[in-house]
């Protein structure tokens, strides 16, 4: 039986797409080269956050966060879903004006956010260094455990009749079918949700792997309560000319449900090199210590790297791919794949079913960007 839709990739985005499409009554086959949630999803922090780099990013993240919130009562404990909120930290007085502007922009678009004074901040997170100027609290931001969430989405899709095949590597996507190492699988519609590997299957997709490091500690329940992010994070995370940008680090700390502290973040373009860059890791940790000196004594137990699927304009590629009949793309989410997986899945389902979406899908249309330079896309090597 030919499935209505073949989803290529069972990361958080592919799994959420399978979930949304099967909910519409479509028959879905998911093909995954390794196992569900084992790629970038496994390496992700799982911060569900409203981001305001651009109006389109704000729209998609705010929409998606609402969908996570609606889903919260159904999520099993393994997904470790918690409403930790985010604290955007202003390091000094010069950052207070941008902080206030950020808060006003949030509120103007219906996302609750509140300014914390220096004293409020010290009370909320006593392990932060004294003397930080203040923070913006976005209390409805959340934290989930991404690989568990991906598995749960796929299992829910399977209960509706979706099928999964793991350990099956897709090597090409053509009109009307996908080709694996051993067979040709017919498919009316294909969704390329292969994340950082998506351009290997769909040449021309403007996606590059953007490597990141994370360090996790042993359990220290109560050490910190909110996801903490320096206000300068956006400056580090985004901007123009992505290919030439040098490596950057920013303070980003997440309290896991286990009591573990997950410390980030770094960004660099290094192909699919899965080795830990000790220099970048050290810079990233020292950045963390500059905000939170007490981190120095916490016992770190593991470092890993992941590859964010980055696009030149920091917006994902979601929708019909103009160059191949029957092909839809749901990839290129960079560091926001967990947050926007749910919104992406709705947009993808709407596009496939040819109906209107809750938010304007135009800014994410894959046809807005083409990358026809072959040299960008090396074969993925050893992945972390």
């Amino acid at each position, binding site marked *: 039986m030919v499935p209505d839709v073949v989803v290529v990739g069972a990361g958080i985005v592919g799994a959420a797409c399978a979930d949304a499409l099967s909910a519409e009554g479509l028959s879905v086959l998911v093909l995954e080269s390794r*196992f569900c949630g*084992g790629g970038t999803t496994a390496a992700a922090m799982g911060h569900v956050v409203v981001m305001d780099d651009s109006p389109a990013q704000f729209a998609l993240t705010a929409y998606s966060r609402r969908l996570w919130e609606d889903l919260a009562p159904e999520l099993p404990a393994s997904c470790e879903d918690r409403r930790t909120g985010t604290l955007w930290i202003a*390091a000094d007085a010069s950052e207070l004006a941008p902080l206030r502007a950020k808060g006003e922009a949030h509120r103007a678009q219906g996302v609750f956010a509140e300014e914390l004074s220096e004293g409020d901040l010290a009370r909320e997170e006593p392990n932060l260094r004294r003397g930080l100027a203040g923070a913006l609290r976005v209390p409805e931001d959340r934290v989930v455990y991404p690989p568990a969430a991906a598995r749960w989405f796929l299992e829910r899709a399977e209960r509706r009749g979706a099928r999964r095949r793991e350990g099956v590597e897709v090597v090409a996507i053509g009109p009307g079918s996908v080709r694996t190492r051993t067979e040709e699988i017919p498919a009316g519609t294909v969704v390329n949700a292969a994340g950082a590997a998506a351009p290997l299957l769909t040449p021309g997709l403007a996606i590059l792997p953007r490597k990141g490091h994370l360090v996790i500690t042993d359990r220290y329940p109560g050490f910190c309560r909110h996801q903490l992010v320096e206000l300068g994070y956006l400056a580090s995370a985004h901007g123009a000319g992505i290919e030439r940008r040098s490596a950057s680090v920013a303070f980003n700390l997440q309290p896991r449900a286990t009591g573990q502290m997950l410390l980030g973040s770094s960004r660099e373009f290094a192909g699919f090199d899965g080795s830990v860059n*000790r220099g970048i890791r050290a*810079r990233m940790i020292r950045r963390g210590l500059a905000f939170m000196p*007490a981190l*120095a*004594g*916490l016992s*770190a137990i593991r470092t890993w790297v992941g590859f964010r699927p980055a696009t030149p304009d920091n917006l994902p590629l979601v929708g019909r791919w103009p160059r191949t009949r029957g092909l839809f793309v749901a990839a290129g989410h960079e560091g926001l794949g967990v947050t926007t997986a749910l919104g992406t899945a709705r947009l993808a389902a709407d596009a496939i079913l040819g109906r209107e979406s809750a938010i304007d899908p135009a800014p994410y249309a894959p046809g807005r960007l083409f990358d026809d330079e072959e040299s960008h896309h090396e074969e993925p090597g050893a992945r972390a």
Partner: protein
Amino acid sequence: MPETVAFTCDGRAIQAPAGVTLAAALEALGAREGSAGGCAVLRRSVTGEPRGVLCAMGICFECRVTIDGRAHRRACMEIVRAGMDVRTGEVEFAASSLESPGEERIDCDVAVVGGGPAGVAAACRAAEAGARTVLLDEGAAPGGQIYRHLPGHEAPPAARAWLARLAQSGAEIRAGASVFDAERTGASWRLLALGAGAGGVLAVSTRAIVLATGSRELFLPFPGWTLPGVYGAGGAQALWKSGAPLTGRTAVVGGSGPLLLPVAASLAKAGARVAAVVEQAAFPALAAFVLSLGRSPSRIREAVRYRRGFAGTPYRTGTWIAEARGIGRLEGVVLADARGGRRELACDLAAVGWGLTPNTELARLLGCAVESGAVAVDGRQETGVPGVFCAGEPCGVAGVEAAVAEGQIAGAAAGGRIARLEDAWDGRLLTRARDRARAVAVRMHRSFRLRPELARLAREDTLVCRCEDVPLGAVRACSGSREAKLASRAGMGPCQGRVCGPALAFLFGWDSDTVRTPVLPAALGALGFAPAERAPEEEGLG
């Protein structure tokens, strides 16, 4: 009278002999009527189970306590200090106690990691060859597990000779240094170690590395194996050698391999009543192994001497510990045998060792190839990574004689004394000693091969990962260790899969997941150390 040290544990005043490990001292807290000690409950697991010492040699992280406000310290790796404030149970966090560690840098020709027989021999030979040599060892003094001896007592004779030679070799000895990271830096290597002087980071730049990281016990899950009072076989012995009182305790020693004999002898000598020693291998296999030792009568004499150490205690073959029972702590074990018999035996100490498994984490981090669980080396003990040598147990468990021979070969080669082994004055002797010991090891592994019944001891609710309390049923459907990790958290705790990894390899044939840096938990402050790549513009704020 030996000198004593006073400290507090959960507010209670404790006196312990100077030089003993904290784990050993805390075992005295478990004392019951008629005994000098008993198993101490040192922490609650992530699901609230009581836990005590298991490996006693820094591998399993079960004995984590909070010391002077620093959580997750291994009690088995800490020597008691006067005035230390020890807390068991819930993690207590005191921000004021956290400070950035200092840094110390060393440049050398050869860095030897691990101070057991292989490492000591390697350091001697490298230093004697004129190389600037540093020996990094996690223990309080070099010697490792085999040469371990009670504080204030003399080392065993074989150890004495080597430790004396080491002292005169010119090698720099850094005890208490846990290597947590290693990477190539141009033509040389950089090792980062913790615990060198005042909790600082020791950065060692070296032209060659000898990995002598030894082996650890293989732990197999069986019902009740997480109860305090169930120790590794080597773990129980190490605990006693590091100063734990065992007088008045009733012990059952079980598992597999020649290690069970010296363990039983040690426990008896320490004052425990050894109720039974059970070996899973069948008698004919065992007899064949003993007969094959005909060419090494010293080993037979050694075995006889150990056997006398617990004379009067039955030694049963084809028998194994199938279950541990007790509420909150060990009260008895169930013995099963090849004929289907089962019987319960009361005890408060079970020393369970299913054999040894090589410590290959650091080798794998450095990119060395591992085949069938052992680091692959050439005739000069060099791994496929030029400049990285490996000696002793990481190359496959083969005992102290192989370790001493290989340590010498590796140390001499790393020290640059010999370009090719054939040229060394004693190269041929060493090679012969190594090959003989390795041949015995092959016969030993064959004789003590673990029976398939042991893979069926664990039930669906028996924990396989003790750090994260993951039951067997939660991993069974997974495709391998990496999926198990993500699906169930098995292997995600501080021991980093050192306990459950080899167990899952035995149960399901899974390879271990990729090694992650740090290879041992390290303070974030230490991990933030990067001498070559300091980028001042990135530090500080504003």
